[in-house]
């Protein structure tokens, strides 16, 4: 299977095709495309047969690791199992083939599903109103921050232009703050891995619009002083934003709305089991407290009697952040997932996710540096700094070696506050046997780092390609097969 992969343009041969189209049953249009607008040279799309095409993409798929292939403990990404029934349901013609502008009376099932999902997500998070429009987590962050800004401006507080973000935050948090026109203030972490409350107090002023927090945070640790933090922010006239990437740990355990958060984004592609698609599509709904509801993107779905419609008459709305209503087919899967689990099932999800993470941490703790030695939630961060110092083996080397053992690496070098970080999120959909096997592999690698560091540094060995030259890729970028030919 190691023969080199040919690209589609290399497989191409004039005259081949992988489609069958109807013959035209209308006369050729007498009105021609004016010469100045007509394409002069054909787009050189590949010409391949259907067999070629299917074999090509099947071959490519076999070069991928995926949740359906094995354990994928990529921290912060919640790579839980993606139920097959949800794929089937999302492809029902009555969901898949709807036009966004068809009359609402022809889409009542879709609207009912979206309304139902909104209600369930409000219940799960403790929020009052919710929009399903944002396409991913970062998009939700930007939208939520815009809602905050619009609400503050409406209150006449235009000078609140700063938003506080922890040093452990995900990169999208500060980047989204910029997108929404905020300036970022960084709050440091304390020795327990939580927000340093003293440092937070020192940052407060009447220019602060609020704070963005992930809870459990990106270290997998619960912000123990969350109620105190909420009070500090609220007393100073600010608002609290909840990055829902880690909501899996909180399902049925503690709701962001009860912790004092005013805006919450969710990642349906994490917590609610919709597939990650090799990088997307996701869905990033945002829930808000009553006071912020008027500022949500439009339209908002409303229920009247037994029917549903889109309400566009929202004078204070920030407007729209994408066309139409969001990633509807992702919502179908999330709705199906919640219906499958029910209240008790969701609580069990959080319990097992947290239990699995703590158990796994217990099994590997001896071999690694623990930056914060306390109970974790659904994920934990360990450091490879000992191996780096003592054996010259980096975290990157060790996780590449994990690939040879048949596992997907954890998230690495994030959060930035931990050197040589490995962020492991096992998820509730993994069995104790899988956790045992993974911990044995990780412990074996720690041993290899001591005894045979070169082995680890030269991994992976079992993959279709070995380590790739990223420096040259960035220095002399070849970004299409056209650039390559130049």
């Amino acid at each position, binding site marked *: 299977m190691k023969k080199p992969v040919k690209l589609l343009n290399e497989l191409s041969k004039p005259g081949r095709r992988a489609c069958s189209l109807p013959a035209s049953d209308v006369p050729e249009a007498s009105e021609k495309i004016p010469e100045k607008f007509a394409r002069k040279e054909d787009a050189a799309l590949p010409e391949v047969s259907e067999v070629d095409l299917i074999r090509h993409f099947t071959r490519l798929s076999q070069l991928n690791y995926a949740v359906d292939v094995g354990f994928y403990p990529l921290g912060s990404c919640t790579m839980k199992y993606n139920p097959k029934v949800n794929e089937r349901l999302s492809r029902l013609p009555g969901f898949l083939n709807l036009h966004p502008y068809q009359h609402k009376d022809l889409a009542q099932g879709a609207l009912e599903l979206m309304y139902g999902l909104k209600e369930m997500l409000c219940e799960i998070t403790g929020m009052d109103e919710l929009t399903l429009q944002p396409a991913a987590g*970062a998009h939700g962050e930007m939208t939520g921050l*815009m809602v905050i*800004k619009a609400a503050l401006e409406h209150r006449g507080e235009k000078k609140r232009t700063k938003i506080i973000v922890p040093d452990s935050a995900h990169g999208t948090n500060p980047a989204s703050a910029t997108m929404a026109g905020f300036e970022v203030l960084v709050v440091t972490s304390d020795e327990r891995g939580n927000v340093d409350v003293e440092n937070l107090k020192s940052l407060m002023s009447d220019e602060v619009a609020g704070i963005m927090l992930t809870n459990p945070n990106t270290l997998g640790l619960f912000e123990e002083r969350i109620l105190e933090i909420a009070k500090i922010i609220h007393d100073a006239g600010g608002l609290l934003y909840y990055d829902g990437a880690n909501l899996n740990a909180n399902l049925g355990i503690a709701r962001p709305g009860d912790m004092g958060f005013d805006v919450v984004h969710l990642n349906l592609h994490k917590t609610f089991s919709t597939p990650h698609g090799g990088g997307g599509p996701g869905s990033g709904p945002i829930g808000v407290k009553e006071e912020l509801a008027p500022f949500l993107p439009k339209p908002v779905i409303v229920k009247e009697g037994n029917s549903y419609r889109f309400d566009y008459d929202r004078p204070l709305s920030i407007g729209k952040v994408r066309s139409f209503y969001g990633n509807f087919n992702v919502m179908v899967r999330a709705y199906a997932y919640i219906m499958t689990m029910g209240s008790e*099932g969701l609580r069990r999800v959080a319990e097992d996710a947290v239990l699995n993470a703590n158990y796994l941490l217990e099994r590997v703790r001896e071999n690694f540096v623990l930056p914060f030695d306390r109970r974790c939630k659904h994920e934990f961060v360990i450091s490879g700094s000992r191996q780096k110092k003592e054996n010259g083996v980096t975290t990157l080397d060790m996780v*590449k070696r994990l690939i040879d053992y048949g596992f*997907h690496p954890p998230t690495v070098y994030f959060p930035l506050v931990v050197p040589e970080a490995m962020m492991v999120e096992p998820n509730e959909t993994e069995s104790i046997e899988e956790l045992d096997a993974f911990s044995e592999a990780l412990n074996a690698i720690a041993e290899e780092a001591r005894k045979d560091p070169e082995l680890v540094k030269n991994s992976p060995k079992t993959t279709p390609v070995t380590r790739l030259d990223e420096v040259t*890729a960035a220095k002399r970028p070849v970004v299409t097969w056209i650039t390559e030919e130049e």
Partner: protein
Amino acid sequence: MSSYLPNTEADRRKMLEALGVSSVEDLFEDIPKEVRQKGVGGLPGPLSEDELVRHLTALSERNCHLGQCVCFLGAGIYDHFVPSVVDAVVSRGEFYTAYTPYQPEISQGTLTAAFEYQSMICELTGMYVTNASMYDGASALAEAAFMACGVTKRDKVLAAKTVHPEYREVIRTYTRFRDVTVEEVGYKDGVLDLEDLASKLDDSVAAVLVQSPNFLGVIEDVKTLAEMAHDKGAMLVVSADPISLALLEPPGKLGADIVTGEGQALGNPASFGGPHFGFLAATKKLLRKMPGRIVGQTTDLEGRRGFVLTLQAREQHIRREKATSNICTNQALCALMGAVYMASMGKEGLKDVAKLCYDKAHYTMERLLERGFERAFGGPFFKEFTLRAPEPVETLNARLLREGFLGGYDLSRDYPEIENGWLVAVTERRTRREIDRFAEMAGGEKK
């Protein structure tokens, strides 16, 4: 308990024991008591798989889908044919249950396909580089506006009124919070009004944003617009229908600096408006200003070709608040659908699709002109066109619906100045019989 939770009660006990705690509750002691819940209240379910399938099937059947009516509605989302190979490829768990290819050694499938996607989008648009996808056509255009502001260090953009109304609304939302001003440029005979543009275009303008074929269906003169923009040091950003580019000169060859668009037409079902993908392609000069993921070619230690995420120094995980964009998760699987579609159609097939759309749209217009409709604008169009109907569009569409047709988009809300304005879209899927019947039902007896 659900089949997605493999741990048995015995497993849980064993794990708790290893942790030295007596119950799972003990793992949550660091959460303040005041906020601790006893479980999510009041959710429906749990449903067994069969119950779930019945429930969702019933919901889906309360919708009328495009297989049950004949669609002449477009306005950004089109009823194009999607070949079976598309779903066959993206239904593979190796593709759809992976995530962003951070570990290239075990992600060559996703990376190679993304490189091929990028190559084909650049072939179509005539551009040098594209990213691996944006959320949709609207946000892609908004991000392009920011790119132009960043590069030109100017903070005003001009948006043609012939750009999709929802896209303009998204641009207004995106720019409002960053002190970027958006001014709209009017239209004349269905295309951007060059005089109005000339009067608004000065050296404070970062970019002119247009759509071609535009929202009203008419093809814009991209070359002239590019020259006018460049004259004032501004960029030209074009939002394009990718199918049309099989027949129309690509904006890249006409001077556009950035080409964006909605990729739904490329193998993605309508899906009630999402998920699909947006594309954003640009000139070589803008390579390092691009938002989002870009895949690049390189070699491994043994000299074999391979692919990686590249130019990551632009992105949020490295640059944080100084990143070119906040986008992280994109629409990768939808872009893969686009790639499979483009490869499936190929060079000749995509031209055939475009030609069928073109001929059928023109045939449809002729039939409707025979029955009391008036062509609103004289300019050339591709697969969509604007007519003035002899009656309010609402009543017209309601009558058509009773006959099983999804009529054209009602322009009365967004373009009230076009009396009874009706935007009709015709794809390769419409047959002559459907078109003839549609015209008959829309206009009654031939005049």
